[in-house]
């Protein structure tokens, strides 16, 4: 099963971002083709999260454009949201809802017409080793289990573009292996992955983007 229609490339042109009066990055270009993966690298504060939020549409870039094919992604925010899965620092798990309820809510919200929604949810839980926890309320979960529940969203409702902000945080080695396999399958189907990380994540053939190269040096002097 692959994406229909096949997704166009996802590009950024001359992106710049100012956060709290400080230029985080400037003149940044990126491009992700279907089946590609892009790894964002750089020290803390170099703008990995900001760039991912710009890609997701949560943050407007100060200058530059994010393009889906030829169309600016900001032009139709809802269409962009439909083709994107964003995994941020927080896991968005409600403490009083069970694992399956949490996941089903996000899956149904993302793709309400998914005919086999519950089957997709079960499959996603199974894949991330959460089947035995499906009726456990969110407050009982460990940090790693919460993160796995959050990642299970990726599989419960398909979307071509995955934006993952340090997805391996709190995951054990076995779960990182699962995530690597899931990302490889996603790319084989023609999906795209953009991921920021400080750990080693095995993504064969992934391109790297070093964000510290785009940090403007003498911002204060220019003012």
């Amino acid at each position: 099963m692959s994406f229909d229609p096949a997704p166009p490339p996802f590009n950024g042109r001359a992106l710049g971002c100012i956060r709290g009066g400080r230029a985080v990055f400037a003149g940044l270009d990126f491009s992700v083709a279907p089946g590609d993966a892009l790894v964002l690298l750089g020290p803390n504060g170099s703008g990995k999260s900001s760039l991912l939020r710009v890609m997701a549409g949560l943050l407007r870039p100060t200058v530059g454009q994010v393009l889906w094919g030829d169309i600016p992604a900001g032009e139709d925010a809802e269409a962009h949201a439909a083709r994107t899965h964003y995994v941020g620092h927080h896991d968005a798990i409600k403490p009083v809802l069970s694992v399956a309820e949490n996941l089903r809510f996000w899956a149904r919200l993302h793709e309400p017409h998914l005919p086999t929604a519950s089957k997709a949810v079960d499959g996603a839980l199974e894949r991330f080793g959460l089947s035995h926890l499906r009726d456990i309320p969110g407050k009982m979960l460990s940090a790693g289990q919460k993160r796995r529940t959050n990642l299970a969203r990726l599989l419960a409702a398909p979307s071509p573009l995955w934006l993952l902000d340090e997805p391996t945080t709190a995951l054990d080695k076995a779960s990182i292996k699962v995530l690597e396999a899931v990302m490889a399958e996603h790319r084989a189907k023609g999906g795209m992955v953009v991921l920021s990380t400080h750990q080693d994540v095995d993504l064969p053939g992934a391109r790297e983007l070093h964000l510290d190269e785009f940090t403007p040096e003498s911002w204060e002097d220019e003012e």
Partner: protein
Amino acid sequence: MIRFLEVVRRDLRLALRQGSDSIMVVTFFVLTVVLFPFGIGPESGILERVAAGVLWVTALLASLLSLDRLFQADYEDGSLELLVLTPTPLEIVVIAKVVAHWLTTGLPLLVAAPILAVLLHMNADGFTTLLLTMLVGTPILSLIGGIGAALVLGARRGGVLLSLLILPLYVPVLIFGVGAIDTAVQARDATPHLLILSGLLAVALPLSPWATAAALRQALE
């Protein structure tokens, strides 16, 4: 539409399992109203005169109590980011959350109000109007309150700030809500007041989700 119902259902389920919010709001409403006979004495003439005002002012404060949780929990656990990234206009999500808020706080107030009205010796002619004003008025409170709740996200002591922002905007609802009941008690036609109150609802219904959505986007930037 499915997404709208999905958000309403989730918020209702959350409210049901956590339970505290609606119970707290109604308890506050009942306790505060019960304090008035103690405070101003049990003479039915005075109580009857102030009943409409007491009920409405207390309802305003009660609904204010629960507002700061409207978006705060979602903001803290990252759900708000994902709600903003839902493939549907954010305004729809906001309306869904406000509807759920009204069902869990406004509706219980509506149910409790006539019982408390008996306690305050309100004239029986005013009961229907009391229910009507509550029915039209409490959704306005939830709608306007949503704007405030979104604006104070991330602020420390947001609850206090929220009251300062929102209470002035509640004044028209209070004036026409109480006005309608007083007119009805005097056996005059309360329709003009009710129409103005409905007009307020008609204005708040499209404008406040729009303003709330803008404030939420701002909070996440």
